[in-house]
């Protein structure tokens, strides 16, 4: 993946997918569902945030493991940049979710602790904020990279427990659980999928794009100090 760091074709692809999402997401016909109505379009803008966040975290995990196996500083730079962008997508996911929750659940924030899915992701975000504090409190680069990689692998596993296992134990009002359907039930002509899947790809590519810029900046920073990554 790193060999595409400087190529442009996938960035163009990101632009095309995002333009498609933001124009057709508002224009296409959506199934008329009671209570949800037009807010169902939030599927195109809210859910891809979480998909992108989890994807970036997963790739970051792969690079953390690669770092531990090889000790190349480059892999650590990649892992950190991806996590940074993943956190931004997580926060964006909350903001878009709040907008939707304001109309459907009638409140901006009280559901964060009431709903197990949002609680799970809140825990996940806290874990990764702690990751950056951990990095901040170690001075030596090599040691920082190693300790952070170990923590990141540990945290990702427990994050999966909190977003995949715990929500299954409790009931939730969130669409996709407790009898509240996701788009698979309502959408018979797959109109929602036509925009949703491109949106997910577009968001992921955008996330990779932003992290590639961060990675290149960090590489330049090391080059300036004559450190080979």
């Amino acid at each position, binding site marked *: 993946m790193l060999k595409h760091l400087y190529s442009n074709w996938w960035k163009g692809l990101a632009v095309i997918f995002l333009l498609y999402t933001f124009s057709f997401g508002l224009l296409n016909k959506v199934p008329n569902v009671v209570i949800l109505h037009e807010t169902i379009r939030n599927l195109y803008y809210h859910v891809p945030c979480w998909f992108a966040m989890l994807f970036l975290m997963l790739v970051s995990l792969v690079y953390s493991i690669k770092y531990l196996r090889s000790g190349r500083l480059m892999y650590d730079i990649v892992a950190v940049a991806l996590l940074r962008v993943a956190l931004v997508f997580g926060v964006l996911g909350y903001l878009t979710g709040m907008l939707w929750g304001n109309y459907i659940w009638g409140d901006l924030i009280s559901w964060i602790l009431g709903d197990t899915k949002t609680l799970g992701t809140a825990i996940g975000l*806290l874990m990764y904020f*702690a990751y950056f504090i*951990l990095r901040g409190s*170690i001075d030596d680069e090599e040691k920082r990279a190693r300790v952070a990689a*170990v923590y990141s*692998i540990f945290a990702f596993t*427990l994050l999966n427990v909190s977003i995949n296992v715990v929500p299954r134990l409790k009931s939730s009002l969130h669409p996709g659980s407790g009898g509240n359907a996701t788009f698979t039930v309502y959408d018979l002509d797959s109109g929602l999928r036509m925009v949703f899947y491109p949106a997910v790809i577009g968001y992921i590519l955008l996330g990779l794009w932003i992290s590639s810029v961060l990675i290149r900046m960090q590489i330049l920073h090391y080059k300036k100090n004559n450190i080979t990554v």
Partner: protein
Amino acid sequence: MQFWATVGAMLRKDLLMEWRQRYAISGIMLYLLCIVFILFMTFGQDVQGPVWVVLYWIIMLFTAVNAVAKSFLQEGQGRMLYYYTLASPQAIILAKMFYNMGMMVLMAILAAILHGITSGYPIVNTPSFLLAMLLGGIAFAASFSMISAIASKASNSGTLMAILSFPMLIPILIILIRISLNAIQSDDLRVNLQDLVYLTALDVMIVGLALVLFPYLWRD
């Protein structure tokens, strides 16, 4: 065989140190006693079942932070280096975990007795509550040992210990509280079977992860 002998020796060293100094375990017991006493002064004797359960696990959480946090923070760097020349990293982390697990289970039982004496004992299904204490104690001990090892590598590790470990423990706490809430309602162990299986899987996973990751951590 050599490996388990080393683990046994490390464990014996920890127990011996505890026995000779004694201030650590008595400090934790006093801490426990203080929390229970404060809760007793605040809530009085008639505590509702669910409140009792939640208070119990909060007591356990803070006791765990104080009891297990020291496992790596307290040992000086020089002595750690000495251990590493003697034993493999897996043996060291395993011995620490076993020691902390024993400590946590002991504390869990002690907390249940103290909390039970002061605020009543609403649990009807004692076997499943005991299993929750055992599995929860193991999960707390294993994850705190690992986090303590991570935090000991950084400066201001005291604060770091709390912010690194609390988010990770919330999912474990949610499952534990669920089991205990079931245990005050029905005396059938089967209700909790699924959660107990999840918890066991979680314990195995945390211990496995620690065994894989710790060797990367100890090198300085």
